[in-house]
């Protein structure tokens, strides 16, 4: 579903920023879960693109979330920290670098790398062909959309989500969906409209919640 999501990103993502606040209360379990649900895929995906294994990437996700928890207060107090988006990118890259360093301690590492030098954080290949910032931005937007879809998935009636999924993400003709699911074409159109609106709203809510600090 990744390519469909990427192609839909522009439709769903409005360009505006708002405040991140809930992350600061780390005693609130719901905030942890909310943050994790929203960003784990982004961090994981970047880690995998950097050449880490599944297990290593999972560890990067955990370590990055812990880093966020530890330093979110400091980040908020320091006006030089920049945007949350850029700060999270740096934390992710540092944790990826940590994982790469760990490899050097494994027996046989020299054989695997041919005795090569370990890449520095700035050299982590999160994009081989574009600028690192643009690539991160693309991942960021795609992740936000996916997080919004996942939230809406929990909110709408399952049948409506299935109609949306078949029509928008799999591009089935309306007539085929109506025949397969045994519903009228009008219901299919209505489901698409409703779910799409909810996803747009959810993207705006997510941005409001996390994107500005």
């Amino acid at each position, binding site marked *: 579903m990744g390519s469909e999501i990427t192609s839909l990103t522009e439709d769903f993502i409005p360009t505006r920023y708002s405040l991140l606040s809930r992350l600061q209360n780390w005693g609130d379990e719901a905030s942890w879960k909310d943050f994790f649900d929203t960003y784990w895929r982004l961090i994981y995906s970047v880690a995998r693109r950097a050449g880490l294994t599944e297990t290593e990437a999972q560890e990067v996700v955990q370590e990055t979330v812990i880093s966020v928890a530890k330093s979110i207060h400091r980040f908020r107090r320091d006006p030089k920290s920049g945007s949350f988006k850029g700060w999270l990118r740096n934390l992710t890259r540092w944790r990826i670098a940590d994982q790469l360093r760990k490899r050097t301690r494994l027996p046989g590492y020299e054989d695997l790398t041919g005795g090569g030098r370990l890449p520095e954080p700035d050299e982590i290949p999160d994009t081989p062909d574009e600028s690192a910032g643009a690539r991160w931005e693309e991942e960021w937007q795609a992740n936000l959309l996916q997080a919004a879809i996942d939230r809406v998935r*929990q909110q709408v009636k399952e049948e409506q989500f299935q109609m949306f999924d078949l029509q928008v993400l799999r591009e089935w003709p309306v007539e085929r969906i109506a025949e397969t699911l045994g519903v009228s074409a009008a219901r299919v159109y209505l489901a698409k409209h409703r779910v799409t609106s909810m996803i747009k709203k959810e993207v705006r809510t997510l941005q409001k919640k996390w994107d500005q600090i």
Partner: protein
Amino acid sequence: MGPNLTFPAGEDPPPPIPEHELLGLIGTGSSGHVWLAKNALGAFRAVKIVRENSFNYGGAFDREWQGVLKFEPISRSHDGLVDILQVGGSKEAGYFYYVMELADDIISGQVVIQGRYLPRTLSRDIERRGRLPIGECVRTGAAIASALSFLHRHDLLHCDVKPSNIIFVNGFPKLADAGLVSEVFKPGARVGTEGFIAPEGSGTPEADVYSLGKVLYEISTGKDRNEYPELPPDLGETAEDRDVVQFNKIVLRSCRANPRQRFRSAEDLLTALVSFQFCQHQLRKAKAWRYSARLLAWCGLVVALVASVLMVWRVVWLLTHGK
């Protein structure tokens, strides 16, 4: 990947299990290890050993111990529950164990080849085969719904229904892992496995129905529970695919976020599955009958046409030959 004949590094060796010889490690969970064992009569068994020090807090050990004690007496009274044959150990000893019937091997079934045994679970079936035929989903769902209904009638909850806790014994699906079995109806608790836990939390019969609904979703679509309610990517227009869509209605009703909109009990889910199977069977029978009737009608028409042609030809022949 067969049994590991040594115990995990950094851990104490397994305690002796009376009248059983431990042959190798075949499974590791959050609460303990499962060993392949042979009893005094030479029959293969599975032995789960649970140690108090493997839990983060003491209450979890007690909870699992109580779960097994409640599950053991009724486990052998229903075909859909894995049989617990022996229980031992104590809190004072810091461990307990229970001996269970052994799941089929993933390849050789009940024939156990030491060193190559791998238990057949529903999750391994999905891994190997992708989405399962709907007939198989219905049979598996009915067996587990019946087992859950039996547990609920005894005021017990399973609280951890998921594909890796459904094993096959002689090809028959059974609900395993009594670790979270509880008689305490404590709505809102989040015990179990994320993705299979109902939105309102576990601790009620409706929550067990929800978990089974997610199992049915995974086996009928081949997709992960977190992708619910997406339909299979390869959904086409075959008779099997039409069955998937129909079966999906049962899945959706089992997994409603609002428990009031779900099947009211495992018994109701079982009834829906049996009705589905019956209706599909009747539909197929009716379709087959209609097909046969149409074929017969066409055959009759062809015979009538041939007879008419022959009759006309005979009349013409008689007239032309002047008889």
